[in-house]
């Protein structure tokens, strides 16, 4: 293994430019004759647009164009990527999502006009002068009320405000209900998975650049998947032929899911650029981000677990209201269903599971995938109800988990909710966590906390998730309207250095460091001679981008497939150069050699020959050394792990501090341990944020109350402990050649229930026996109220 190949903790090469201010983000790009766009956004949650008077604004200095929803009415809607039918077989109700609001505004922040001017200040002033006459309608904010008041509609054509009422698996429902009816013990828990704002460090930004000379459109935008955005804009929304549209996602400062989706602003700046024949630039401010980025989570769930008296799980069922907001964002229908319902078996042998999810329209910002996407909601429900059941039955929370684990000899394991886990060893990660977290020493630490007047608690979560999204065959059956393969092109240049064009997009993941490690390892070249090219549809093959912890498992595998083809081609060239049979050529340590001889050619010689082919047999050997591979995974990957969280609660104030957090994860083979560690740290920080601090709040009128960092609490360094992270217990994935599983979302999936279990444990140990649940975020006010109820 080269020192910078697979398994090396190489530092991230991209950090040099990020940390020295040399990154190039969309906002850093300025084009000749550029103009500036500002969007007019609704300040009410629900209203009928009577008219929009733009005359006064158009007359203001520097104003070049104002377009409203009416100007885009003939364009297509921005579609949902998955069709989810209801239990009764009826089709998903899928209202058109226009580029700009037309007819009605449906949430605070819903954009109804774009104003373009010579300067940003002129555009802002003119946007303030656009006079929209909007009749306010009663806002539909609460999900239960939205479902209960059928006449009261977010979309006039959708009675009952439901996109779908989904049962998984509907055929199992009767058997699950029968198991509950006969069960010796049933634990019931009602909980809310709080709505989160994604808060990427870089806000969304887009520049539309139409070239009147060629008729080509170019969009610079903050996207996690430029090809997917291009496909949505070209084929669904604007009808631009794909060959006339280039989408470039340059450096992108975080996404967490919120930049997967195509947003109306992207189509609007393209259309405005065409109308003006000048580039049109828009950069969201932080308020716009809070109002208009797709939010995450927002489930209200009733979960029930049926057990025997010994704590063996017999059946599990849930009823969930999932908020989709005002419109169906691209992944919004998959997130609460096939990224959530299919995970409800967890790492356990629960034989019977039934999940019901109703997706509810409300007058709030659209809700879609956010780091973890459906799997945190599933994990939180399962891991919380297990703790409650253990408490009710007087069982140890670790023992009850262990006794229900799927065992190492049961793989491949078919769950009752449609997945086949290929591999795992949950006892191993649990044992490792028990060791690293020093569970045995907890009582001593609790006594020390007590001496300080604090209540100490410990909470666990043994999580699993399905990622490496996704096997196209399976998701096609489940309702996906796209395939979820990825692609890579490996171009060996004449002098032997290598450019790798990837469908995956790096917006914090570290692809520019990790992918070269794989190529270096396979070809025996230094990683420094390999560069990654991503984000520009005119340069990269058609891949589906980065989300769902897929980059390494799916695109990384495509890279290995392309490198395999490079090696195969290299063998042909070597056979020609060495005058040997192709079958006799071996490739090892960067050399092509004739088996059993000392005749060999270095990789660089082969590359040079490929581009200077003066004596090639042209009928059988093409010049060049460049290969593309598309890889479609055969299954999801199933990383899993065991987390322990210790908290201290201040009984006087209810303030919770996280004292320690221990993660023992199984990510299969690890390419770069340093980056994996960083991914887990980031995910756990977001999970602790969800559990203790973050919450998107709307008032009854649909006004966003948490619209700035005054009221939306992001985790800060002093809210977080030093983590203990381990990934030594690994069971390699069986269906990709690298043996890797996804790690990007794990921390955000596994951590929230560990934190809340710890808080509840602290209170129960502190004598507050009646406390069985605390909603997230467990703010001091909530914890204090629970202690003083």
């Amino acid at each position, binding site marked *: 293994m080269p020192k910078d190949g697979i398994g090396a903790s190489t530092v991230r090469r991209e950090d040099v430019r990020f940390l020295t201010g040399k990154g190039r983000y969309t906002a850093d790009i300025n084009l000749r004759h550029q103009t500036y766009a500002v969007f007019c956004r609704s*300040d009410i949650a629900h209203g009928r647009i009577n008219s929009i008077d733009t005359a006064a604004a158009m007359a203001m200095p520097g104003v070049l164009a104002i377009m409203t929803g009416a100007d885009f009415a003939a364009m297509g809607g921005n579609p949902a990527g998955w069709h989810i039918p209801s239990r009764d077989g009826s089709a998903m109700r899928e209202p058109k999502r226009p580029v700009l609001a037309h007819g009605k505004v449906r949430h605070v922040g819903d954009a109804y006009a774009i104003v373009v001017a010579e300067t940003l200040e002129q555009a802002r002033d003119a946007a303030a002068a656009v006079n929209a006459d909007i009749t306010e309608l009663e806002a539909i904010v609460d999900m239960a009320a939205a479902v209960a008041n059928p006449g009261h509609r977010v979309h006039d054509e959708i009675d009952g405000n439901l996109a779908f009422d989904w049962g998984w698996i509907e055929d199992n429902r009767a058997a699950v209900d029968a198991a509950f009816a006969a069960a010796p013990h049933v634990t019931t828990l009602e909980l809310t998975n709080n709505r989160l704002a994604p808060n990427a460090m870089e806000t969304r930004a887009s520049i539309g650049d139409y070239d009147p000379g060629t008729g080509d459109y170019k969009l610079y935008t903050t996207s996690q998947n430029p090809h997917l955005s291009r496909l949505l804009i070209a084929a669904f929304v604007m009808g631009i032929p794909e060959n006339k549209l280039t989408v470039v996602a340059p450096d992108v400062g975080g996404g967490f899911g919120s930049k997967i989706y195509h947003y109306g602003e992207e189509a609007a700046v393209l259309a405005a650029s065409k109308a003006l024949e000048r580039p049109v630039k828009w950069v969201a401010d932080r308020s716009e981000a809070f*109002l208009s980025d797709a939010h995450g989570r927002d489930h209200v769930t009733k979960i029930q677990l049926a057990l025997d008296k010994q704590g063996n799980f017999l059946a599990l069922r849930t009823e969930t209201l999932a908020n989709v907001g005002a419109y169906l964002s691209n992944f919004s229908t998959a997130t609460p269903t096939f990224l959530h319902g299919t995970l409800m078996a967890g790492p356990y042998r629960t034989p019977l599971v039934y999940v019901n999810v109703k997706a509810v329209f409300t007058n709030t910002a659209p809700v879609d995938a956010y780091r973890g996407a459906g799997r945190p909601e599933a994990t939180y429900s399962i891991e919380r109800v297990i703790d409650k059941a253990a408490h009710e039955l007087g069982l140890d929370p670790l023992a009850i988990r262990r006794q229900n684990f799927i065992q190492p000899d049961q793989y491949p394991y078919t769950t009752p909710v449609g997945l086949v886990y290929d591999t795992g060893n949950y006892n191993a990660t649990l044992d490792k966590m028990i060791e690293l977290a020093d569970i045995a020493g907890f009582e001593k630490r609790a006594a020390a906390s007590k001496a300080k007047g604090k209540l100490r608690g410990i909470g666990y979560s043994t999580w699993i998730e399905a990622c490496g999204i996704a096997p196209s065959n399976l998701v096609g059956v489940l309702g996906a309207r796209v395939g979820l393969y990825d692609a890579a092109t490996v171009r060996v240049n004449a002098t032997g250095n290598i450019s790798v064009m990837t469908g995956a997009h790096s917006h914090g993941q570290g692809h520019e460091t990790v992918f070269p490690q794989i190529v270096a390892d396979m070809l025996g070249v230094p990683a420094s001679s390999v560069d990654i090219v991503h984000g520009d549809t005119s340069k990269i093959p058609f891949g589906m981008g980065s989300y769902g912890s897929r980059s390494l498992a799916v695109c990384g595998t495509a890279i290995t497939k392309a490198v395999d083809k490079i090696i195969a081609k290299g063998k042909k060239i070597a056979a020609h150069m060495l005058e040997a049979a192709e079958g006799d050529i071996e490739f090892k340590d960067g050399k092509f050699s004739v088996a059993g001889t000392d005749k060999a050619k270095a990789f660089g010689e082969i590359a040079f020959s490929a581009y200077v082919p003066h004596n090639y047999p042209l009928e059988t050997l093409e010049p060049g050394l460049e290969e593309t591979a598309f890889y479609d995974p055969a299954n999801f990957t199933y990383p899993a792990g065991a987390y322990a969280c210790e908290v201290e609660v201040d009984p006087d104030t209810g303030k919770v501090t996280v004292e320690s957090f221990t993660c023992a994860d199984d990510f299969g083979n690890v390419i770069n341990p340093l980056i994996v560690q960083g991914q887990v740290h980031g995910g756990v920080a977001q999970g602790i944020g969800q559990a203790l601090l973050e919450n998107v709040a709307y008032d009854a009128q649909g006004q966003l*109350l948490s619209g*700035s960092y005054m009221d939306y609490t992001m985790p800060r360094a002093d809210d977080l402990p030093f983590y203990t992270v381990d990934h030594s217990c690994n069971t390699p994935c069986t269906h990709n050649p690298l043996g890797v599983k996804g790690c990007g979302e794990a921390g955000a999936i596994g951590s929230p229930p560990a934190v809340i279990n710890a808080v509840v444990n602290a209170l129960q140990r502190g004598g507050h026996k009646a406390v069985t649940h605390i909603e997230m975020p467990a703010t001091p006010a909530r914890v204090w109220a629970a202690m003083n109820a």
Partner: protein
Amino acid sequence: MDLSDSRDIKASPAHVWAAILDPDVLKACVPGCESMTGSVADGFEAVVVQKVGPVSARFTGVVQLSDIVEGQSLRISGEGKGGPAGFAKGGANVTLEPIEGGTRLTYDVKANVGGKIAQLGSRIIDGFAKKMADEFFTRFQDAVEGPDSEEEIAEETTEKKKGWFKRMIGA
């Protein structure tokens, strides 16, 4: 948000009632009010300039008086639009009752804000609203009873000790 409080004003209910219905008094009492025109029957139009946290805006709005029980109670409702800053709307139920030495004015306000000012969050908005209400009723009290509030109404003897509203209406 909800705000309710009461003030004891050293003036008779009739004087307080007349002051509430007088646009000039309201203009003088609403903090940041640039203009106030109209009548009880038709409602008032007002322009108010205010700074809420970091957001400065000129609100233009209409104020309606309703549920009038002469001399005893009424409802003041209104809506102001501040352009890009957002909007505020709400209503106040105001009741007057005679007490020894004057009038007790009780108000119960329900108000909503939207747009940019709503996103400032409840700490700023609630604090701002409470400050506005306090300032309004302090000014109103001063206007009705004059600066020498420690004096008993019955003992007021000279013109200059009366509040400007009293001087104006010749009470």
